[in-house]
């Protein structure tokens, strides 16, 4: 009888292990996790029946923290890991290994009714830091500017500060939104709204992406790194990925994955 219990326990244990082996936990960036990674996961599942994904897109900071804590196999991030995060990982014996999965351009969007035809980098900095509060100061027809930003756990939030704002603080009256889609929706409804989204979200209704110093966010300008607010997006793993995580990373950077990258609106890495 005891032998039977032992056999059941062993079988259960192996069964659990088997189940874990087919389940991939991915956490992090909303930019990647809202559209791109779920579609990659669907395609991957079609090729690997029995695989399940647990995807939580709550911001790049949460993805990097998940790698440090060991609560995810892949951390999605739209920004580079900070030195403090890399240091914290090292202290726990983890090695933050970045893999570029796609390029992105952070598009500055305004309401499609806004007559503005383009902005300079200086004007973008002035708008988002609050130095300028009325559209008339940047060539618009007048009206109090409503600034929409991502929340502080977002990689896009910190990337944009670094790329466009010389690391200055956002305007005190800016409204923090949970994701790209929410920003696009709010700007689409507000004629005086301005915000930023990943390129994949510029097709939303009621908005238009602004050329910056004449450069339009496009596949060509981002791949050539001529669009000023281009950036790589990452999967972070603890060292070189292995097992199912490696298969998914390889799939993402492979030709099949990169086709999806392009379809979703990101820029392929090659």
């Amino acid at each position, binding site marked *: 009888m005891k032998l039977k219990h032992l056999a059941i326990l062993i079988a259960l244990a192996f069964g659990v292990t088997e189940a874990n082996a087919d389940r991939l936990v991915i956490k992090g960036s909303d930019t990647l996790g809202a559209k791109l990674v779920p579609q990659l996961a669907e395609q991957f599942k079609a090729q690997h029946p029995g695989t399940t994904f647990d995807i939580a897109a709550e911001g790049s900071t949460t993805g990097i923290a998940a790698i440090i804590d060991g609560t995810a196999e892949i951390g999605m991030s739209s920004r580079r890991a900070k030195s403090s995060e890399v*240091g914290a990982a090292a202290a726990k014996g983890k090695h933050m290994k970045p893999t570029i999965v796609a390029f992105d351009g952070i598009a500055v969007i305004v309401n499609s009714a806004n007559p503005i035809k383009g902005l300079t980098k200086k004007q973008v900095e002035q708008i988002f830091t609050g130095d300028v509060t009325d559209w008339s100061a940047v060539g618009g027809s007048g009206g109090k500017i409503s600034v929409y930003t991502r929340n502080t756990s977002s990689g896009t939030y910190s990337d944009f500060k670094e790329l466009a704002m010389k690391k200055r603080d956002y305007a005190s009256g800016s409204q923090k939104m949970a994701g790209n889609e929410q920003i696009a929706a709010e700007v689409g409804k507000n004629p005086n709204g301005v915000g930023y989204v990943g390129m994949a979200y510029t097709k939303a209704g009621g908005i238009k992406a602004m050329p910056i110093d004449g450069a339009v966010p496009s596949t060509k300008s981002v791949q050539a790194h001529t669009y000023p607010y281009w950036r790589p997006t990452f999967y972070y793993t603890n060292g070189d990925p292995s097992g199912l995580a490696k298969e998914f990373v390889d799939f993402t950077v492979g030709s099949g994955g990169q086709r999806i990258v392009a379809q979703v609106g990101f820029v392929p890495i090659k």
Partner: protein
Amino acid sequence: MKKLTLAAIAVCFALGGTAARAEDAGALLDLLVKKKLITDQEAEEVRGELIKESAETSAGKWKLSTPITELELYGDVRLRYNYDGGRTKSRGPTAAPGVGVAGADDWQERSRERYRLRLGLRGTLMDDWFFGLRLETNASPRSTNVTFGGDASPSSPGGGGPFAKGDDTVYVGQAYAGYKGFPDFTFTGGRMPNPLVTTLMVWDPDINPEGLAEQWKHTFTFNIGGGGGEAVQGYSKYSKEGKGVVAAQSEPFKLKLDLFANFGQFVYNGNINTNPLGTRPTVSASAGDATGQTGQEIPHYDAFLLAWQVGGRLTFPNNVYFQVAPVVYNYTGDGNVFNIHYQGGSPYVTNSASVAQNQTGINSLLVLEVPMEVGWKIGELPMRIFSDFATNFEADDRASAAGQSGQGSQRFAYTAGLGIGQLKEKGDWQIDIWYQHAEQFSLDPNLIDDDIFNAQLNMHGIAVRAAYNLSSAVNLTLTYAHGWQYNGNLGTGGVGQAATGINPLAQFNWFTADLNVKF
């Protein structure tokens, strides 16, 4: 992989082999990607490695807030042996000698072993702002010294005893912020390093004034000569006949003119109730009888010291320069601390009564100071002559208020000296020798240096300072000063930290041996 290794080597080489500046690698890696020497992924891996190494170094563990663009930690530690001695007068109504009571020709001498610590942090912030903070030992505005064993008394904080920590306290010496966003202008507010060009005769270098300062400085450069012209004549070589016919050097020499202006609005005496409860307080008999101020209302507004300085420095080739920086000081009022009229002591009362007279009043002070300096080099040896001249335009009133009508001529202060050498590198030396003369009603006794003549006026004498750099950061400095009373009919006004209880101060000797360690 080979390319990746190449990139890593290139980056490490560019960064001097340290990972501490990993963030600087971005531009170089971007360039390598742009040149297609490496891929974006390879660049990212190198960047990740550098950040990891950086994060594990001591420097990488320091985190600075985003607005800080540059930060400097600096300071100094000084070990000092200090002798000071003061002598009372040989004539006049000094008290009968007793324990602690000055008699005629009575010397008070003291030797102290002391240290000081100054630890500062200054930096620049985004958008042309800056800030500074410096912690210092000693609460006195004119000293940062702590005397070893000076707090052994049971009444000292902490209960005294050997090696007590009662006086080893750290104070905020400087705390300021400012803006440099307009070309040539600097605006500073807070408790700041003295923004004025001045000398020991007028300002103790330990004083960090509190308030606002506005500074402007612009440099004009003139190219004179360059293959011909009058200005080149000085560079012409002479023929054997002694005529200036040999072609001049084609390199033009540059004349540099720095013009500057410094303005200060310093809060001299603050925290006054401008509308106190009840009736206005008045000067008590004990404080005011000697100056006829008994019953006067005590000022109920803050007192400000205002400084107005313009100046210029003309620099010729070969390190020859001339600098002059006149400055006018005036006060907006006396405040409630400095409102009793300055008397400064008298040789016609007992020594203790003389000391008890007011030594700090700032009434009737409108002072012009003109510091000047001329420098040149003999061979590689820098030399300079420095001087300062000051006069109080309201000395007549100040003397009258002190009960010394007719002594308004005691309005001048001046100093002049010679400096040889300059401390920069290991083995450098410097010697300064100067004469200083400050009359009784010439200067604000609360500001003058408290070392050379014990922060007392109506003194004159000589001082010499010799310093040697044991390393570029460590020097040994010896200073000796000997001063004596100038006008025998007046006291020696001011409150010194040495030779306490002596006024008039007939003679004063000062000697220090300092080991300065700067970092």
